[in-house]
């Protein structure tokens, strides 16, 4: 898509002056005297690695968090936002990375929250709300049913609905935080078309992202942040993706281009172990969320499973980790059905698992790093029921060194960055038996360096002959990492693709259910 030319009279609307944000609780300077101007009618991309301070800066701009110092001007007048409501009143609306909706509210109720339509006697006016939602939705080509339950919508739809909700507040500046993460390519195109229309209407759009492809596709100007500081703001037409990348990462870092990555050839030896799913079915209510799944993963290969979220990936994760039991069907390890579907039993028989939710499931944020590291090895570190202090320390120190986990071992997990949290989880999961390892969204939200670390581990596991299963909604990741790819659609395996028959486009179609052939693999 060609970006439209910049409007001739680009009125400056928002200016952030020397904004600094200091997180006292973990002693981090998230924003270091950042100055930034955003003009009406432009799509302004804000890029940087995880932890570069992009989201924090925009939280300041949208009233979600006060800056430690510095100020904001709108049309030349200084403003102070103490809550999102202040920002909204000034036309600044942010769509968050994970838009928090109430799942059992209807779409119109979620969108009406805060700016309710009322009847003359002061009660809620559903008709007026629904009409306003439909009007705005039609204008920007977003399809949505105001009466649908929020929880029924697919994750990729949530961002569209969230954007719609933001538009209903008549923003002059719309901020989007990683809106394309759960979207397929056609959906991204649709979203960007809507953003272009907004810009054409004179609305300023800030797009937080770390996907350079998207930046080059849509942005008018690009601001790069690194380690809390602003590196530069440049015109998109006067730069290249490589230049932006080097600004993002600094000089010393190599970029792995996922598209050009060559998978190492699989080990020649015959498979030593297999993990097989046979007719695995899970119901949520009356609906099957996993419908007769048949898949076999063999050692020395990586089986990628992809699809749009809500199409069964999350339930596959739960079943493969023993968190829930299938309502029908079995999982067999080396031909033997697993006896019990509990995380405890799965661990005992050698199935390791890197969870999607690293905070709530993968970590105990209020415990020390060491206490997080020993979770799976606790039994080997005790004698007569007593934990051997020395052994615990040595074990934790060993993992810390091998995975270069930052900071002291006795500090609480809460202090670690996202990348380091994932390192703690990886080191814990991979330091025991490595028979079968299930990775679920292992690189989600990680910066490039941390991502590469995860991929290296996966390759290592593959070449030493472990069964590796990668569950990921990221097509690029699955394409470049997997030997075989299963595509999920509506709870079923839509297709199982071998190395020679897969392309981005084919997978994209399968994810969207364009093709159903080969459903009974």
């Amino acid at each position, binding site marked *: 898509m060609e970006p439209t030319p910049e409007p001739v009279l680009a009125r400056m609307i928002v200016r952030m002056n020397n904004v600094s944000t200091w997180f006292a609780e973990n002693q981090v300077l998230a924003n270091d005297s950042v100055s930034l101007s955003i003009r009406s009618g432009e799509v302004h991309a804000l890029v940087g690695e995880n932890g570069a301070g992009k989201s924090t800066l925009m939280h300041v701009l949208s009233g*979600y968090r006060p800056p430690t110092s510095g100020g904001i001007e709108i049309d030349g007048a200084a403003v102070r936002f103490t*809550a*999102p*409501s202040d920002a*909204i*009143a000034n036309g600044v609306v*942010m769509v*968050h990375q994970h*838009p*928090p*909706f*109430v*799942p*059992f*509210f209807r779409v119109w*109720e*979620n969108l*009406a*929250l*805060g*700016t*309710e339509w*009322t009847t003359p006697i*002061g*009660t*809620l006016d559903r008709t007026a709300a629904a009409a306003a939602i439909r009007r705005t939705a039609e204008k920007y080509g977003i399809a949505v049913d105001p009466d649908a339950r929020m929880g029924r919508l697919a994750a990729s739809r949530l961002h569209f609905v969230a954007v719609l*909700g933001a538009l209903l507040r008549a923003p002059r500046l719309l901020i989007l935080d990683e809106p394309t993460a759960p979207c397929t390519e056609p959906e991204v195109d649709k979203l960007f078309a809507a953003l272009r229309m907004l810009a054409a209407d004179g609305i300023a759009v800030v797009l937080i992202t770390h996907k350079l492809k998207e930046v080059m596709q849509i942005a008018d100007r690009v601001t790069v942040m690194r380690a809390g500081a602003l590196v530069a703001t440049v015109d998109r037409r006067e730069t290249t993706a490589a230049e932006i990348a080097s600004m993002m990462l600094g000089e010393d870092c190599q970029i792995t281009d996922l598209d050009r990555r060559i998978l190492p050839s699989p080990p020649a030896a015959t498979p030593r172990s297999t993990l097989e799913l046979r007719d695995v079915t899970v119901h949520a209510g009356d609906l099957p969320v996993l419908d007769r799944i048949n898949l076999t993963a063999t050692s020395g290969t990586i089986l990628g499973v992809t699809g749009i979220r809500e199409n069964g990936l999350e339930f596959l994760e739960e079943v493969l980790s023993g*968190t*829930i*039991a299938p309502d029908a069907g079995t999982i067999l390890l080396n031909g033997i059905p697993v006896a*019990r*579907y*509990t995380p*405890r*039993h799965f661990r005992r028989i050698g199935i390791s698992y890197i969870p999607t939710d690293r905070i709530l499931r993968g970590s105990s944020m209020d415990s020390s790093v060491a206490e997080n590291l020993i979770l799976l090895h606790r039994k080997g570190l005790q004698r007569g029921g007593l934990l051997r202090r020395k052994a615990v320390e040595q074990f934790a120190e060993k993992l810390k060194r091998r995975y270069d986990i930052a900071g002291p071992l006795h500090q609480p997990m809460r202090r670690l960055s996202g990348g380091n949290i994932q390192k703690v989880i990886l080191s814990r999961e991979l330091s025991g038996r490595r028979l079968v390892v299930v990775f679920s969204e292992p690189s989600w939200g990680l910066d490039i360096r941390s991502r590469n670390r995860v991929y290296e581990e996966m390759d290592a596991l593959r070449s030493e002959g472990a069964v590796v299963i990668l569950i990921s909604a990221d097509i690029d990741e699955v394409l470049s990492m997997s030997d075989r790819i299963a595509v999920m659609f509506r709870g079923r395996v839509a297709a199982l693709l071998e190395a020679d028959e897969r392309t981005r486009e084919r997978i994209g179609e399968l994810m969207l259910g364009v093709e159903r052939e080969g459903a009974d693999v």
Partner: protein
Amino acid sequence: MMFNGVEIMTPILLAALGGLFAEMAGVLNIALEGLILIGAFTGILVAAATGNLAVGMLAAAVAGGVLAGLLAWVTSRLKANIFIAGLAVNLLAAGMIPFLSTWMFGTKGVLRFPDLPRMPRLLVGVHTGLPLLDDLLFGHSVTVYLAWLTAVIAAVLLYRTPFGLRLRATGARAESAVVSGVNAVRYRSIAIVVSGVAAGLAGSTISLRLGVYLPNISAGRGWIALVAIYLGYRTPMGIVIAALLFGLTDSLAGAAQGFMNIPGTILLGLPYAITVVAMILYSAIRSTKPRRRRRRIDAHF
């Protein structure tokens, strides 16, 4: 028996409806018991001093609201734990009332107010020909009708107004309220105060109907109200039914006491016993569906 049951249900219903606002805003208000006690004490004191029941009830509502406001303040401003601070309210009521009672009347025992006007009754002598329906609907204290009216008002407020939408969003997912420009902390505090007002009112209906104040006059009604919220599926109409069930069981037990010869002391524990049994049965039945999965999840016990 139905007639008595309806009278007994009234304070439970009022307190539970108030508690529903807190519950909807995401707060389990375990202070209801203490707030009822404060309401019962304040209500009868002010009513006796002014000779006016309505003024007494108003004072009870204010007292409940103020104490709940204190609870809201320590939990929102000082970020105190709501359960612990809620216990504080219960203990404060249990400690302050005997203190004030001793200070003002020289006793912490029963307080009698012989000159107190009697609670007026409405629709006395109206008949439909169905005794059970008559007992349910007619001839009750004003407070009974007040409680029913409160249920209707609660339903409208919670489900039909912007206030209710914001309150429910706060409880369901506070961030959704915050990013929409709603001050979640304020709505949570308002909900706690509303529950205090309702519990205070509930307390006054107990003491004003009896015309005396007895130590620990609330007798567990605050806890029963909490359970009634769950049993009523967190809806105003459900709570009406749950409260009525509690009222009926209570009056049934009172009647049974006579011919079954159970010592009165033991029966003091009955409301608690009924409540806990109801609560356990409710959760057991409700979890039959997801139980299979839950059980498997926790099967390595």
